[in-house]
């Protein structure tokens, strides 16, 4: 400044002793029956309401309700809320809420040094310690010295607080999650009002339960106001966000919504043929609840029937999709190939989970990429698109549907357990902003040929019921352009190449590689799918340190952007981080015959930003 004598006096911010923080990561952990998912969701909604940016990650056990108090039964919900733009639910956690010993045992390793632990003393009895495999009580044996432990018999306090509501002892105890939520609200200077409204609405028909929960929430809040449990409160300010209307959305919700939007845009009835499987089931659940859109959800007897029914529905003219996770894709693969041969538009959604085989059903992974690309007999090209964040599932679903119907091809949409269950704020688009989806149906019998291709390489979609277009399709090789069965050698080669070219031509839709950060330099990080948030944040950190790093996040894996090879040329080193043993890396190397570095993680968990930063820095040191 020119005036060196200037003096700025800070104005009070209205909160006496609140410490300002840019971002906070809380993990609520307890037994499956403790209502931690609900607590986390309520806190999330409040953070959203206050204008924080945020991201969440639930972590359920594989069992429905494993024995109470055991390690297997621990259920957790993590959220990060911040006054800046964030893209992940946080690496390490600032605050761990542990409702019992098992919850502490499982989650402690992710807590930052000098992080806060809030425990319910009631969950640390001899039995609880035993179930959690603790020889001595960690609250008392000094093993938690590195942290700030806040102890309270939350259960007891809750039971006392809800006495006036007159609910049973069992139901009283169940309110302890609201007591805890009240404490957290106090700690972060949030008002309990919105949650009180929510409770009244939710439990309107059971006033005693409503009263109990209200009582617990307020008691928790007030207890902190009175007792000197915490030294201070914290304040996380609004994040700068694009103006607009927002909602919280999980990946599975967004996927479902994306298909509804696609069906509206394409003016086509949506048909979903599916079979429940973790972590994809919620898409089916969501769409089953939207019948007033005319949506037809068909819960099939298995994945094969789900995919086949979708193919039948596509043949009959619906916008048809099928949703599943990895093991289900195995079963659908023969039908997917039928769609390749019959050139019918369906979208196959794979919400990836830990594999191989049944693997780790409730954990995330990105290990079904090569299966999506190659998991069928024959030369069977299939477009593959991957969503990058919970909210992006909406856009990816629409795009997958658009390509399917415009190119008359099956399309694979890959998401994963992490973004499917995780949630983030989603800027609600105007209907007018949504992409157009052009559907043309064959109508004129005089020019109709079932395998006559248009300029996109697509064959005509001729819908049963259209007079004069009676024709037959199937899984045997088709003669071009009549569609009759053909065993002719030249025809088979021609059709094989045409199928490849059609998919390759989607490049014109894919466009050029999108780069974040440096457009040339020392390191190009190529990622795909749900690792976007962590990779992008890590790259930002390196950029902030002045490193010459670029980030290309691939939305379409087949086809790849047509300039990707040239983009690679502009960097000294390439890194491909993935939640698998190197699948995209193998594919890219195979395509471009170029050396690159892979970084794999196969722990059923997303990357931590810090892991990525450390690794990228190492690579930069080697090749400065």
């Amino acid at each position, binding site marked *: 400044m020119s005036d060196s004598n200037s003096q700025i006096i800070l104005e009070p911010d209205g909160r006496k002793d609140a410490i300002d923080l840019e971002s906070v990561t809380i993990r609520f952990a307890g037994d499956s029956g403790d209502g931690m998912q609900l607590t986390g969701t309520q806190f999330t909604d409040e953070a959203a309401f206050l204008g924080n940016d945020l991201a969440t990650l639930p972590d359920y056990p594989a069992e429905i309700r494993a024995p109470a108090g055991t390690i297997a039964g621990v259920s957790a919900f993590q959220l990060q809320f911040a006054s800046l733009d964030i893209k992940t639910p946080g690496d390490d956690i600032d605050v761990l809420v542990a409702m019992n010993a098992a919850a502490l045992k499982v989650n402690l390793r992710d807590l930052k040094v000098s992080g806060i632990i809030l425990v319910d003393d009631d969950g640390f009895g001899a039995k609880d310690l035993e179930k959690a495999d603790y020889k001595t009580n960690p609250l008392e044996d000094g093993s938690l010295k590195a942290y700030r432990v806040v102890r309270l018999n939350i259960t007891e306090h809750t039971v006392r607080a809800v006495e006036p509501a007159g609910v049973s002892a069992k139901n009283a105890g169940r309110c302890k999650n609201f007591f805890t939520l009240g404490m957290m609200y106090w700690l972060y200077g949030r008002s309990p009002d919105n949650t009180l409204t929510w409770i009244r609405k939710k439990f309107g028909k059971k006033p005693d339960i409503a009263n109990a929960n209200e009582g617990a929430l307020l008691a928790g809040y007030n207890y902190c106001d009175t007792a000197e449990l915490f030294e201070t409160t914290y304040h996380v300010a609004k994040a700068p966000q694009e103006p607009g209307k927002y909602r919280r959305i999980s990946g599975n919700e967004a996927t479902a*919504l994306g298909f509804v939007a696609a069906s509206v845009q394409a003016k086509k009835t949506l048909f979903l043929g599916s079979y429940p499987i973790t972590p994809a089931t919620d898409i089916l659940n969501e769409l089953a609840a939207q019948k007033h859109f005319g949506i037809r959800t068909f819960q099939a007897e*298995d994945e*094969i029937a789900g995919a086949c029914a979708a193919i039948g529905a596509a043949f009959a003219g619906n916008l048809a999709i099928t949703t599943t996770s990895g093991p289900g894709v195995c079963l659908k693969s023969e039908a997917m190939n039928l769609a390749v041969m019959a050139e019918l538009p369906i979208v196959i959604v794979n919400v990836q989970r830990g594999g191989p085989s049944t693997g780790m059903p409730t954990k995330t992974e990105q290990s079904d990429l090569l299966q999506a690309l190659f998991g069928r007999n024959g030369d069977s090209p299939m477009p593959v698109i991957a969503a990058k964040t919970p909210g992006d599932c909406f856009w990816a679903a629409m795009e997958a549907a658009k390509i399917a119907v415009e190119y008359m091809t099956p399309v694979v949409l890959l998401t994963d357990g992490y973004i499917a269950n995780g949630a983030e704020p989603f800027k609600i688009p105007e209907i007018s902003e949504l992409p157009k989806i052009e559907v043309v149906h064959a109508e004129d019998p005089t020019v109709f040929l079932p395998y006559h291709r248009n300029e996109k390489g697509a064959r005509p979609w001729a*819908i049963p019921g259209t007079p004069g277009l*009676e024709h037959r399709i199937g899984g045997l090789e088709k003669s071009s352009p009549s569609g009759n069965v053909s065993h002719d050698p030249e025809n088979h080669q021609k059709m094989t190449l045409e199928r490849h070219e059609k998919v390759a031509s989607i490049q014109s839709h894919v466009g050029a590689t999108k780069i974040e950060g440096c457009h040339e330099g020392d390191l190009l990080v190529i990622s795909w799918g749900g690792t976007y948030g962590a990779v992008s944040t890590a790259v930002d950190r390196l950029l902030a340190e002045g490193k010459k790093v670029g980030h290309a996040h691939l939305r379409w894996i087949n086809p790849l952007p047509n300039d990707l090879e040239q983009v690679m040329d502009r960097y000294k080193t390439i890194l491909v981080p993935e939640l698998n043993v190197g699948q995209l890396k193998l594919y890219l190397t195979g395509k471009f015959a170029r050396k690159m570095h892979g970084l794999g993680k196969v722990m059923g968990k997303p990357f931590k930003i810090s892991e990525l930063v450390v690794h990228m820095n190492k690579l930069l040191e080697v090749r400065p």
Partner: protein
Amino acid sequence: MIETTPSPVLTKKDFVSDQQVKWCPGCGDYSILAALQTVMPKLGIPKEKFVVVSGIGCSSRFPYYMNTYGFHTIHGRATAVATGVKSANPDLQVWVITGDGDGLSIGGNHMLHVLRRNVDVKIILFNNEIYGLTKGQFSPTSPVGLKTKTSPLGNIDRPLSPVSVALAAGAGFVARSVDNDVKHLTSVLEAAARFKGSAFVEVLQNCVIFNDGAHNDFLAPANRKDKVLYLEDGKPLVYGAEGEKGLVHSGFAIDAVDINDSNRGQVLTHDTSESTGTLAWTLSQFDYPEKPVPVGIFRSVERPAYHEMAEGQIAEARKARGNGDLDRLLHSGVTWTVD
């Protein structure tokens, strides 16, 4: 649901496609093809509303020979694909062509489920008791002891009765016909076509190459009268050249007896809508040659079809919530505004 407004009069020829029929000369499939091509024009349904879906097998080449919409899908899955076709467009009349291998071996589960859901498709199962297309292996309907390429010492898997399986699945219309009695076959297929809901028709079919004469023992014209029991609703359950044999109750079982004056009054009457389905079941379990082979309609009981219920729920939801509004849906849940 099926539109039946007058349309140009259709003939059998309208349903013959331009593709050469490639079954072996003498194969029973020809007559089934002809029968369906005879039935379709009688139904008053415009040609473009027919869809024929098949799996894989000799029999499943069928759609190529029909000048309708057709889909030759993958092995065992025709019923599942057809479920999608009919659900997506309830206005179509959907036929499924399948074989004993396609429909009861690899496709047995979809068969069970399409029938229990009462999806309004008409299923013809070509039962030649053999895998034709793969050149002669035993199928789930092959008799015990049948020597085939994969059972050189005789089949040891007890055969399924397709009719029993359909009944266990809760199918509303269940029938059996034969490839060498065109009149009967045509009438059964027409009844199936006119039935609302899942219709299942087993057709005993001869594979001249790999299982020639499998059904001859009772289907050869000379044997038929004495060994085949033609089921007719409301008619007595009798057979034999002069109707001299008939069915009577005997404990829980139904016996086949020579009719005489003392038992004439006990001869049972066929009832395709018998409420508990016991009659149909018992007939479907008849062991040949101790008992005759029943042919005709075993059961015909309508209930709401799958698409009616599904569409009904859509209508109900629309009544309750209005037609889906995308903007409103996008704004559902917890929303907030950033200015």
